[in-house]
């Protein structure tokens, strides 16, 4: 199984280089191939990692030692995929594959796209996906930071390829704020290193098994400082309040395939980084501090996202604020003590990737059809787009956590986890606040969706002809929507096992 990990490391990178040198057409094909292959490889790892035997029984290659879970390792322990990383890897790879398909359709429907634009887009998507796939599978806290820094640089450059003034503004804000945040998280890495050196000696590698097994003896004050810096630093890239200000701009000015990956995968991958620090902190300083920090940031983020949703004018900005809202939900979910809530958080990562992907693909369809992102001018969507229109509406309901979608199941788990027996008053209050704010967000989203899709288009005949602009976009949307529904109605058994394994790893001290 180690070769699978090495393949995941190599395939998107090779595809990026090749698609840059080969030209737009082959670049498109290579991107799609690389996406599907990577997703397949990620799924291939699931059986090796998601087992229902209790830890202590025989282990797979590498094993996790005292961590109580299974993992696949490669390259002498430099790469490591345990259940936690596999959840995020699957989310990333899934969206990578679908975005590749969508991007081919999106670009072919755009008659202004130059060859240089296409080359940049496809090579950029591959490189971006490579960095995002590397982050969950490297076994080193420092290399995790390096991977996320690479995602920042690549995505900032991708935001600029549209070439408009507002794209440059968005890219500048993004790269400046995200780099400042990542500087803070580099400081966090150094602080954790110092905490570890009390136990592990002055010079050691930041491998997770070593860190996590020794974390109980790390000095608590130092670890708390490191955790706070990490939440603030990586939280800039997750989109937590108050360092989210770059997010609506960057996600709306990027080309739509890139926006889908930014919202659906990148935010989650950076949340994964916070989770690794969470694991160290809860073993060292106790879970209460770690949870309280996340609760505070989470509720502020959710509040901000829900409030801003109603007043949006730009379609992709609307979806960006919805991402902010969902990241708030993730943070609040992690702050609950029940294992069910954590399972909900991990399922939400997958479901949100699918839902956000569908929503952005639908937004791309609308933009291609009507040539505008302005919410005031988008009307009569269902009439014009017979396939993507209804699927877009479904995706928006998915983002509002309606049944039968996966997001309903995950947020339900989170709320039930908040009200679980043994939870104290603050958690219940937080769960209630979550429900209220998600409802508020639902109101905002459905208002806009109804306006866009269900109200009749302009009568003066200025609307374009009815029909889809590209079949591939529809295909991508339908696969994503199908995955969302499957996650909601009946998640596959192996996925369930995987998620419960990851939840156990995260909730060791419960």
């Amino acid at each position, binding site marked *: 199984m180690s070769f699978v990990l090495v393949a995941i490391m190599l395939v998107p990178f090779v595809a990026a280089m090749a698609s840059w040198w080969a030209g737009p057409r082959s670049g498109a094909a290579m991107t799609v191939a690389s996406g599907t292959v990577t997703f397949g490889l990620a799924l291939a790892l699931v059986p090796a990692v998601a087992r229902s035997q209790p830890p202590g029984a025989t282990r797979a290659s590498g094993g996790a030692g005292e961590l109580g879970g299974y993992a696949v390792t490669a390259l002498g322990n430099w790469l490591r995929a345990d259940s936690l990383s596999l959840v995020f890897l699957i989310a990333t790879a899934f969206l990578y594959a679908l975005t590749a398909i969508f991007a081919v359709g999106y670009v072919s429907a755009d008659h202004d796209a130059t060859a240089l634009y296409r080359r940049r887009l496809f090579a950029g998507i591959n490189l971006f996906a490579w960095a995002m796939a590397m982050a969950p599978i490297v076994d080193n806290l420092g290399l995790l930071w*390096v991977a996320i820094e690479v995602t920042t640089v690549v995505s900032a450059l991708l935001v*600029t390829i549209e070439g408009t*003034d507002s794209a440059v*503004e968005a890219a500048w804000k993004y790269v400046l704020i995200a780099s*400042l945040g990542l500087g803070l998280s580099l400081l966090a890495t150094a602080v954790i290193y110092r905490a570890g050196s009390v136990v592990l000696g002055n010079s050691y590698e*930041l491998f997770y098994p070593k860190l996590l097994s020794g974390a109980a003896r790390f000095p608590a004050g130092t670890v708390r400082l490191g955790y706070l810096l990490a939440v603030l630093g990586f939280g800039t890239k997750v989109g937590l309040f108050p360092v989210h200000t770059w997010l*609506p701009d960057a996600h709306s000015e990027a080309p739509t395939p890139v926006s889908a990956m930014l919202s659906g995968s990148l935010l989650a991958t950076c949340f994964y980084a916070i989770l690794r620090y969470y694991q160290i902190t809860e073993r060292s300083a106790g879970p209460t501090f770690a949870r309280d920090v996340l609760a505070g940031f989470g509720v502020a983020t959710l509040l901000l996202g829900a409030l801003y949703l109603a007043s949006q004018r730009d379609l992709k900005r609307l979806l960006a604020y919805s991402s902010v809202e969902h990241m708030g939900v993730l943070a609040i979910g992690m702050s609950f003590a029940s294992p069910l809530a954590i399972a909900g958080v991990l399922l939400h990562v997958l479901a949100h990737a699918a839902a956000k992907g569908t929503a952005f693909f639908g937004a791309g369809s609308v933009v291609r059809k009507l040539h505008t992102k302005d919410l005031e001018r988008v009307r009569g969507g269902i009439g014009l787009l017979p396939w993507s229109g209804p699927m877009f509406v479904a995706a928006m309901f998915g983002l509002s956590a309606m049944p039968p979608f996966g997001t309903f199941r995950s947020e339900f788990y989170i709320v039930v986890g908040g009200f679980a027996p043994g939870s104290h008053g603050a958690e219940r209050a937080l769960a209630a606040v979550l429900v209220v704010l998600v409802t508020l967000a639902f109101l905002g989203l459905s208002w806009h969706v109804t306006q866009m899709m269900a109200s009749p288009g302009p009568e003066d005949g200025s609307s374009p002809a009815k029909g889809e602009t590209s079949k591939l976009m529809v295909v991508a949307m339908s696969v994503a929507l199908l995955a969302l529904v499957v996650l909601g109605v009946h998640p596959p058994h192996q996925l369930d096992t995987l998620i419960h394994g990851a939840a156990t790893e995260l909730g060791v001290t419960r």
Partner: protein
Amino acid sequence: MIGTLLANVPAAPSAFDGVTEALAVLVLLVVFAMLRQDLLRAQVRMYAFQSLAVSALAGVLAANEHASDLYVLAGLSMVLKVIVVPSVVLRLLGEVQVDLAGNRRFGVATAVLAGLAVSVFGFLVIGNVHIAAAGAAGLPVPAMGAAAATVLISFVLVMFRGDVVSQAVGFFSMENGVSVASLVLAARMPLILEVGFLFDLLVAVVAFGIIMRTHHRRSSSLSTETLDQLRG
């Protein structure tokens, strides 16, 4: 009579401690000077000087610990941060015919006072956290206070300036602060990681450079005053 008064004087720091703390304080003072500086070229040169101080710190630490990987780090950071990065930015400035001085939103005295306020905050936080003195392989802990203050003042620099070069220099000086902090906290971190961090910095510089150039090409200025269209 003087003798009894002097009986309680706390001991001075050792020579190594004194030199390293002086260098760390020098890094901090350069950030204050950057707050005052309006001319963009001068800011970049100050950054080069600051990076020289950081490389010297790494070199002093290497000499004290007899660690060859720290020498390599000092040399690499000197080449990258003192020579390459400033020349990249200066070349960009050379292409610009206007905008030799940056935009500032508040006066110098206000900026210095804000910088002092955040420095006090930084020192207080570091003092309260009691960073574990683990075998003391690294700079002394008071240098950590200077590093934390440098990081915070760089944030002030980014906030109080309205042009892309000053903001980028603010980010670079924050990286210098983080480098000093990592010399205190994680001096013996494996070389591969340190090299990774340095090369990431280089890549970030490339990204900054590309975006700066694009912005300049579109708006013929380096000011961020026009970058306020996206709101809400």
